[in-house]
């Protein structure tokens, strides 16, 4: 895969997931106890042997820069190639919003790279896959563009791009649908093409007023390019809304999915913090949960995710909840169907309860 350059796109409409993206793009929402969503696309690239990765920064770049830093934890801190941040254009006059503009203004960087292919992925989709199979498929089918999709395992109320393909994988239709039904072929927002095709697509679409890579660059060109669909058959979650985030989090509490995503394939990398193992104290009672290092648990936790450095004091009850990094739940507090963002403190005896299909979200740094 030394012939492939990776591009991670972090720009995505995030209106449906407002509470968690006030200060960050979807890609840097914490996930599964110690990860950020971008870790999945990035780790898949690294594990596939891609050594030159450009990160198309969103306007709100602080959390991404702080998470990825030098790229060393993903093995991408190198003298040559490695991770490169591609900031958005300086003056945003509001015209032509969307991800195409950022691609367009970074064509210089892409032009200067030496790899033959570009693999463009979105930082808001969760999966663990080997892209080298996609490259082989791309070469074997002689595709101009390969789109990676998965077959939906259930109905999904979130919008998505649905493909139709012929027997040989040729894409015959691409449609943006408001909701996904079981068994539909849904795009994973991963595209493989030669660098030249990418440059042509972006330049042509942007200079003719396009905004979105898929809608304006790819979909309008279906006639001129041979587009093939590659089916990935592992676990996939597209984070488009709070409810899809909550659902995907509950999914990884299934041992089957947890293992598939993290253990059975290559490693998923994330920022290394060297936190100590979890300290379960005498009164701890934890079931059906994922608990990340650095936690100290004295209370009861069921069917929940505790991120790094969470403290659960005596008498606390946590159920069906996601408790992010460094939260403290003080004695006898209760949280059910709750998402606590980073550094939340729930003081003694406070009870918080959301609904299973409408979790209560507590914003970053709030003390309740």
């Amino acid at each position, binding site marked *: 895969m030394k012939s492939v350059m990776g591009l991670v796109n972090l720009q995505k409409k995030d209106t449906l997931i407002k509470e968690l993206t006030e200060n960050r793009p979807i890609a840097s929402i914490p996930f*599964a106890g110690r990860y950020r969503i971008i870790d999945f696309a990035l780790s898949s690239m690294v594990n596939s042997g891609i050594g030159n990765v450009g990160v198309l920064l969103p306007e709100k770049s602080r959390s991404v820069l702080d998470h990825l830093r030098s790229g060393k934890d993903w093995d991408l801190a190198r003298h040559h190639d490695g991770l490169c941040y591609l900031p958005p254009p300086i003056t945003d006059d509001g015209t032509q919003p969307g991800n195409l503009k950022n691609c367009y203004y970074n064509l210089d960087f892409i032009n200067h790279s030496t790899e033959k292919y570009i693999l463009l992925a979105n930082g808001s989709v969760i999966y663990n896959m080997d892209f080298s199979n996609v490259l082989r498929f791309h070469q074997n089918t002689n595709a101009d563009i390969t789109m990676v999709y998965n077959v939906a395992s259930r109905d999904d109320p979130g919008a998505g791009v649905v493909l139709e393909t012929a027997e040989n994988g040729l894409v015959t239709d691409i449609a943006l649908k408001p909701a996904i039904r079981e068994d539909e072929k849904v795009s994973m927002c991963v595209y493989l093409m030669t660098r030249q095709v990418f440059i042509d697509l972006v330049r042509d679409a942007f200079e003719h007023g396009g905004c979105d890579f898929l809608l304006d660059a790819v979909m309008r060109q279906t006639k001129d390019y041979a587009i093939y669909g590659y089916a990935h058959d592992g676990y996939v979650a597209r984070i488009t809304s709070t409810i899809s985030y909550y659902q995907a989090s509950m999914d990884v*509490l299934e041992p089957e999915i947890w293992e598939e*995503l993290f253990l059975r394939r290559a490693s*998923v990398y994330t920022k290394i913090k060297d936190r100590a*193992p979890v300290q379960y*104290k005498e009164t701890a009672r934890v079931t059906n949960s994922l608990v990340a*290092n*650095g936690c100290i648990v004295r209370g009861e936790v069921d069917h929940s995710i505790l991120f790094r450095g969470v403290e659960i004091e005596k008498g606390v009850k946590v159920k069906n909840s996601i408790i992010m990094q460094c939260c403290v739940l003080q004695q006898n507090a209760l949280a059910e169907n709750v998402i606590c963002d980073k550094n939340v403190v729930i003081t003694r005896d406070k009870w918080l309860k959301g609904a299973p299909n409408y979790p209560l979200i507590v914003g970053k740094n709030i003390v309740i």
Partner: protein
Amino acid sequence: MKTSCLAMILAGGQGSRLGVLTKKIAKPAVPFGGKYRIIDFPLSNCANSGIHRVGVLTQYRPLELHNYLGNGSAWDLDRKDGGVFILPPYAREKGADWYRGTADAIYQNLNFIEAADPAYVLVLSGDHIYTMDYSWMLDAHKQNKAEATIGVIEVPWTEAPRFGIMNMDTAGRIVDFEEKPKKPKSNFASMGIYVFTTSFLQRYLEADAKNSHSSHDFGKDIIPRMLADKARLFAYSFEGYWKDVGTIESLWQANMDLLQDKPPFEMDGEWRIHSSNLSLPPHYMGPEARVTSSLVNEGSVILGEVENSVIFPGVRIARTARVHNSVVMPFTMIGEGTLVEHAIVAQNCIIAGGAQVIGKPGAIKVVPEGETVSAAANNQQAG
């Protein structure tokens, strides 16, 4: 200010007192505390103290140690002006010598020290668990205009006869050193941590190498010789947790120490213990998991009962398994209906369904790396 100090870790020999645990790995690479290897402690102390160039002297399984330490990146020691260097006894024109003692190990690597040209050399031993800022000790060394500074710790008077005991004057200068004295004059024990001014150390090592009567040991030969010469030797007194983990019992006990409601030292504070990362997900606790007074690391699956135990990464504990007062090292499987008590189960073992591994305090049961224990062995063991 750039440190001008080089650390040499005596990662020693085969670690025979740790028995079967060191069958396949060198002692410094033995797992500890649910996450770490013993050598993570001196290495993290070095990195956190601003000492970036570290030699690791070992003559046993250098490749395995090299694979664990890699390029030192886990400890952020992969620096332009630093690095972790494994120093096994090399073959030389005259053939290879085993290190004949701690002092000889340093002597044989004088060219490594000369290449780095530090003002001070810090000599550490690779089998103690503690967190310590060596830069303070180095400051004391400079302030005292010392030629050697020895780390000491107060031990109970009753235990003093087991240690090398230092007697200091009121200024902290060492006036006397007794190895395992019957009637100790003080209760300050040597921790096996030395700061030497480089040229001073060099002189003594060269003289010692020529002395055919010497056992080439810092405690037995070098320090007494320095004292006899009235060199400026000072003690630096350390307060905090410090534990030798050179035997099975002490290794087990040091693991158990971490399970106190308030652990004896902070592993998770600003003085972080770094360790080579396996990139595993948070551990999973099953519907019937029951874990109390324990440490559990990433990548594990706990479906059974764990009490007062230390669980390393990638361990699987089945439903109806019981693990009590034990240490379970990485990637070991513990099957259904098993009982593990007062035991250390090394890496990659399988404790098959129904098997029992039962030790007792003072006679900790050890399962060596890669072994399978089946229920069939229960009677045999009971016998």
